């Protein structure tokens, strides 16, 4: 096998394909007409060097693309919420098919919050990594998990919105239901595009050693390195806001539900999102 064939195999192994691989091979072929193979370097090491840099750049960029898509979807979601939900809040028992309606209503509350939290964590990590030429593979994997979680729950929010509008159609006008369902489904398009960008980025494999770190490496503020304490403080803060916003009766109900949601999500997703080790 010639040197260039070896380099081609190694580039494919680390996930560099298409135009990027063709360009590297053409440049290497041109170089080797003047230089020698031994001086050019080991094909495996060289391919990995390309992959380490490309993976860092692609994963970080995918996180920014995802955050932009989530921002767009979030803005649309907020507008939809104001136009449809607040204009005629449905009685929770008035769903055409109650179990589906209840799940959609719960998802409508929980999914956007999880998506926002995961997206924010991804953005913080991406900002930290953008200064690095190459980032440890474990850090990139964590960033990709945060990005994918944010996108998945963002898409779930849109789906829940559409299902809610359809299942509680009795409470809304026909045009509201159609607008809500069509708007929610169309807002899933940028999220899907961002997910595809993320999957493409994940093909290139970095092999840089190092720890993934946790949320304490991401926040600019010095927090006590006790994840559960931070979780409870956050849940408590949100509970106080909800209490203040809706009074003792409804506010208390909302506050308890929020605390339970935050604690359950922290337990379920904490490791995946690098919130706790």
């Amino acid at each position, binding site marked *: 096998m010639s040197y260039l064939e070896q380099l081609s195999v190694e580039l494919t192994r680390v996930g560099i394909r298409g135009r990027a691989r063709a360009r590297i091979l053409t*440049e290497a072929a041109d170089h080797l007409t003047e230089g020698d193979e031994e001086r050019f370097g080991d094909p495996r090491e060289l391919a990995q060097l390309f992959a380490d840099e490309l993976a860092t750049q692609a994963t970080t960029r995918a996180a920014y693309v995802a955050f932009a898509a989530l921002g767009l979807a979030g803005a649309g979601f907020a507008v939809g919420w104001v136009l449809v939900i607040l204009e005629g809040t449905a009685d929770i028992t008035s769903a055409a098919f109650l179990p589906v309606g209840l799940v959609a209503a719960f998802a409508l509350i929980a999914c956007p919050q999880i998506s926002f939290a995961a997206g924010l964590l991804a953005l913080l990590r991406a900002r930290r990594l953008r200064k690095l030429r190459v980032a440890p593979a474990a850090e990139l994997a964590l960033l990709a998990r945060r990005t994918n979680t944010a996108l998945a729950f963002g898409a779930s929010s849109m789906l829940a919105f559409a299902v809610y509008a359809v299942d509680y159609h009795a409470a809304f006008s026909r045009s509201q239901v159609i607008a809500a369902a069509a708007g929610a489904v169309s807002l899933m398009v940028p999220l899907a595009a961002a997910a595809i960008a993320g999957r493409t980025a994940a093909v290139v494999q970095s092999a840089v050693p190092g720890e993934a770190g946790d949320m304490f490496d991401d926040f600019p503020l010095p927090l006590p390195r006790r994840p559960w304490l931070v979780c409870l403080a956050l849940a408590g803060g949100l509970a106080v806001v909800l209490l203040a916003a809706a009074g003792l009766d409804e506010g208390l109900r909302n506050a308890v539900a929020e605390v339970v949601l935050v604690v359950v999500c922290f337990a379920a997703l904490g490791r995946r999102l690098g919130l706790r080790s």
Partner: protein
Amino acid sequence: MLKGHLDALVLAALEAEPAHGYGIIRRLRTRSSDVFRLAEGTVYPTLHRLERDGLVTSRWTAASGRRRRVYRITRAGREALTVRRFEWREFARAVEAVLA
């Protein structure tokens, strides 16, 4: 140590005129009196990154029937090189002061 300064060295090699990868390697070797001997292929990931960062641009040309990618430093690249030169001189002065 050389790897940590490869960006600045490549930018400096392109400062006077554009060059292809092998030409850059040759300039580095000549200007360092053959002291800088790195795996020649490692210059390409650096060039590709500098291009992504907008510090160099590149285009295909033809050379003896082959396709050749020629790199040219940008204005942002020249500014980055000025900053890195200053940082290097500060660092070198500090090392010299300690070692002397």
